[in-house]
């Protein structure tokens, strides 16, 4: 008996040893699948992938947005962490965000046709305004998060190609943007020598919006970033909505088109029942008295996210139901709006959907089409909208939770 026990124990012993020796070899390979990237694909998409509460972005390329092959990040795409906003200027896609700090990273195409990160510029805080001023320069603005944290704005100008800091100005006060409440900045644009900043007065504790009836735009000089004047207009209401960067678009003449939203589904605590468009001519310090379009009066819908396409045409997602839930951005329709004709066409092929998920509106226009990702009950798909006819076709499926940006780099 004793002998048997010994034998068994010896066997167990060697078996255990064998297991110990074998295990490391089982794991001695990496989990990544190698690179599946193809050089020279023109379209650039930032895929936001959320799993178990964490979002990671992959900046991938695609040859065709209408293909049957899904666009995915398996073995491809530049990985970026933290919350990110994407914005293109010339041949650079800026990725702004990060973990713990906010930096701007440029994404450019290298000589071999692959995307590469270039430069890395660290902001003090998250820039709340970011816009192109000329072929070489971006302007950025930071705002202290609450009245207690500071009273001055910080402006930067950054080289588009190299991401070098050109200037920084920290002497411009937040005032008078904080006259009513702390400003929630919703848009920034450069036109005719001025920087225009739209904002919503919003209580930084309760997020209440007490003054929705007026459009507020602060005007700053460039390149000195000094405050010039505050312009107001009461034909519509506040310009833009919270953190959506949707206040302004530039038209083909370099004039500013401003959008008023005041939607209960986009972070407003009250609405004045108006939504539509105003204009500011480049360099002027007042709203254009000749232009006014109350889109809500025409349709009953509120403009939430939009892209100016030229010739007075706008591709927009519009809120159809003010009872859809505070902050929900839900029950949106995609439409083509004609700012000149003051008319709209509902794109019937795109189902009722919620906002896209990224903070900046994701849509790309070329050759008479708009391409936009839409989250449907079947997943995320690119839809191609024919601007002239206001009809759409469903294109490539996107294997991601949402799309953070859609651009073209040649």
């Amino acid at each position, binding site marked *: 008996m004793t002998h048997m026990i010994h034998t068994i124990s010896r066997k167990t012993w060697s078996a255990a040893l064998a297991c110990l020796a074998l295990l490391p070899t089982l794991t001695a390979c990496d*989990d990544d699948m190698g690179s599946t990237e193809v050089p020279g694909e023109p379209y650039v998409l930032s895929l936001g992938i959320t799993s178990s509460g964490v979002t990671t972005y992959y900046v991938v390329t695609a040859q065709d947005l209408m293909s049957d092959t899904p666009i995915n990040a398996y073995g491809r795409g530049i990985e970026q962490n933290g919350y990110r906003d994407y914005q293109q200027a010339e041949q650079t896609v800026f990725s702004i965000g990060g973990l713990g700090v906010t930096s701007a990273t440029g994404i450019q195409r290298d000589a071999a046709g692959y995307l590469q990160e270039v430069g890395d510029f660290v902001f003090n805080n998250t820039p709340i305004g970011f816009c192109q001023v000329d072929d070489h320069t971006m302007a950025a603005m930071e705002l202290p998060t609450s009245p207690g944290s500071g009273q001055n704005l910080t402006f930067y100008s950054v080289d588009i190609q190299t991401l070098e800091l050109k200037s920084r100005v920290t002497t411009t006060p937040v005032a008078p943007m904080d006259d009513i409440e702390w400003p929630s900045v919703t848009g920034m644009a450069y036109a005719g020598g001025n920087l225009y900043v739209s904002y919503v007065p919003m209580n930084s504790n309760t997020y209440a919006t007490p003054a929705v009836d007026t459009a507020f735009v602060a005007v700053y000089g460039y390149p000195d970033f000094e405050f010039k004047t505050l312009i107001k207009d009461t034909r519509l209401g506040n310009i833009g909505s919270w953190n959506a960067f949707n206040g302004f678009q530039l038209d083909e003449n370099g004039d500013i088109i401003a959008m008023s939203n005041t939607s209960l589904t986009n972070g407003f605590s009250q609405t004045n029942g108006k939504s539509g468009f105003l204009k500011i001519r480049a360099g002027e310090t007042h709203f254009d008295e000749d232009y006014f379009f109350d889109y809500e009066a025409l349709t009953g819908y509120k403009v939430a996210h939009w892209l100016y396409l030229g010739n007075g045409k706008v591709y927009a997602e519009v809120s159809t139901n003010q009872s859809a839930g505070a902050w929900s951005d839900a029950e949106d329709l995609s439409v083509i709006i004609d700012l000149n004709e003051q008319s709209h066409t509902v794109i019937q092929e795109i189902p009722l959907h919620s906002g896209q998920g990224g903070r900046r509106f994701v849509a790309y226009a070329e050759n008479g089409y708009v391409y936009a990702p839409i989250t449907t009950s079947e997943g995320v798909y690119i839809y191609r909208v024919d601007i002239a006819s206001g009809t759409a076709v469903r294109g490539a499926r996107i294997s991601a939770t949402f799309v953070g940006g859609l651009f073209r780099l040649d």
Partner: protein
Amino acid sequence: MKIHFRLTTWALLATTTLPLAAQSEGDSLMLDDQELEAIEVVAKSKARKLQEQAYAISVIDLKNRYTAASPLNKVLNTVTSVRVREDGGVGSNYTFAMNGFSGNQVKFFLDGIPMDNFGSSFNLANFSANIAERVEVYKGVLPVSLGADALGGAVNIVTRVNANYLEATYSVGSFNTHKVSLAGAYTNTGTGFTFRANAFFNYSDNDYKVYAPIVDLSTGRSLGDAWVKRFNDAYYSAGLKMETGVIAKPWADQLLVGVILSGNDKHIQTGATMDAVYGRVKSRSYSLIPTLRYKKTNLFTPGLDLSLYATYNVVNTYNVDTAAVDYNWLGESVPSTSRGEGYLTDALIKERQWQANANLNYLIDDHQSVTLNHIVTSMDHKQNDREYPEYSMNDRSQYLTKNITGLGYQLRYDRWNVNVFGKMYFLYSSSHKLIDQFLASEHWEQVKERKHNFGYGAAATYFLFPFLQAKVSFEQAYRMPEAIEMFGDGFIQKSNPDLNPENSKNLNIGLAFDKRFNEDHHVMAETNYIYRHTKDFIFKGVSLTSDPTMSYDNVGKAITHGVEASLRYEYKRQFHIAGNLTYQDITDRERTTRTTDSYVEQGSSENTSYGQRMPNIPYFFVNAEAGYNFHNVFARGNTLSLEYSCDYVYKYYLSFAGLGRPTSKKYIPTQFSHNASLSYLMGDGKYSVALECTNLTNEKLYDNYRLQKPGRAFNVKFRVYLPKM
């Protein structure tokens, strides 16, 4: 004598429930040393006995570690399946991860009392190993007597209760690190009076060098990485734990009142990654915890044992980040237009918690016993941030009460033993919520929520041979939501009354081998297979839009297959070598992601990481150690010990491995670090001095991404131990 002996036998029979295991030590206090030794020979070592339980448990016997300067959290790193992940040096934040569980999913106990709300000043990193007799690590399945809603495991620290001793240690080391501890116990066997105290003081500058990203503060440009010294990471903590009372009375085996007092002060050098560097951010915490413990065996009738405890935790935490300044890693600073280097705050967080437990055990006959356990915890949490005086949740309490009742039955024979148990979890929470926000009818209302869940499990062991034991255990476990998770902040952050507990099905199957050959050679080996099916993780809603109104939500599903193995060989009292390894394959098993509360509210989208390994969790790691004792060196009774240990962690990705261009992915590289120590014990262990070197080869070590841990460090520790006063 006979009665004493019988008492101990009863206790030995009952040792599968833990408070009683601790209690048998109280009993043995009544025996003199010789009798004690005699019994221990028969009864095997306590660690061994615990390990033979049906539960998957690892026991670290700390008796041999008192000369080392290691804090308890580092000692735990040597257990299979366990990783302690630290952010930095002395006093830094750490998370304890076991089989992929971490944070609130793993609970800590001090002598069976849950210590998760004891405050940051009284935590494992502050204890030197001296305070504890042993540490028990339960994996997956918890005994009824540890009543807590742990999802995947628990750690119980059993403090030393030697009747009479006095010990003082002092260690000094690199980065201006000083640690002092004093511990003592006095027991009068005549009157039964006992007094026990532990005190500690830790200080460190933590100014170790790190390889950090440098930003030019005047241009905002990244200048690349350089070696720099940390400059805002000083830490001190001090604490006192006292207990007094009587033992061995007819009406009480033990009646003890005690108090824990502790405080810490730390400077905070970095944010979530080393990209963020702070120069003036600070945090302080104070804890005051009165405790009461009572134990009685053979209450009213032989075989009926009762143990009770109650604590009241008073914990105040201050977080301050108000400076209008920006720092870089060179220690340079420039004024900033915004106050607050990370997040502007000047907050006082007050937590008050009642905690009480009763454990009743009845030995029906020689083979059967039942255990009934009930634990109640009631937490009152409120905070006040002076930087946001208009914030209406300032100083509003959120209450959370948990009741957990467990009932277990145990059948025990010579070769096998079976436990079955059920646990009822009740949760009651109450908070204030803003109703009709932004409307004229806006008002605060008290909202309450009640929930209950039923968990169950079983554990069995069988001795295939006297030296080979097979074990299997299973539990359906739950972790109840905390108040903040259920109610958000009751204000902007939405509440989610539908929040479900996190739940997991945990299965362990193991084999344990323990045999002596020719008395001199002792071999111990253990191997386990682990299965976890975990779902409904509680996460803060996915903030795709930084919508400030996000609520907590149940998301995710993961399956874990793991194997762990350990092996130890000892030759007399001269030489030992040991090693263990863990491989755990944790994969994402959620097919679709729901992202409620975000802009993408409709439907659900495909989960692109389905089937992939869960990121940011170490999945293959190995520890090894060896030691040699030279006895009677220089003088009779003196021992010189040489110890070596190493730690290997295989590379792991911080995001899903299959996604993205491989060269753009962030990962923690494979790490292999070595530690060595030389200690000299004099006067049969009364005096000792130990020299220790950690991270011998000065590797760059990380647990959490880019949060670099200290490089090579030396310390020397002096210890005096007087066993009889």
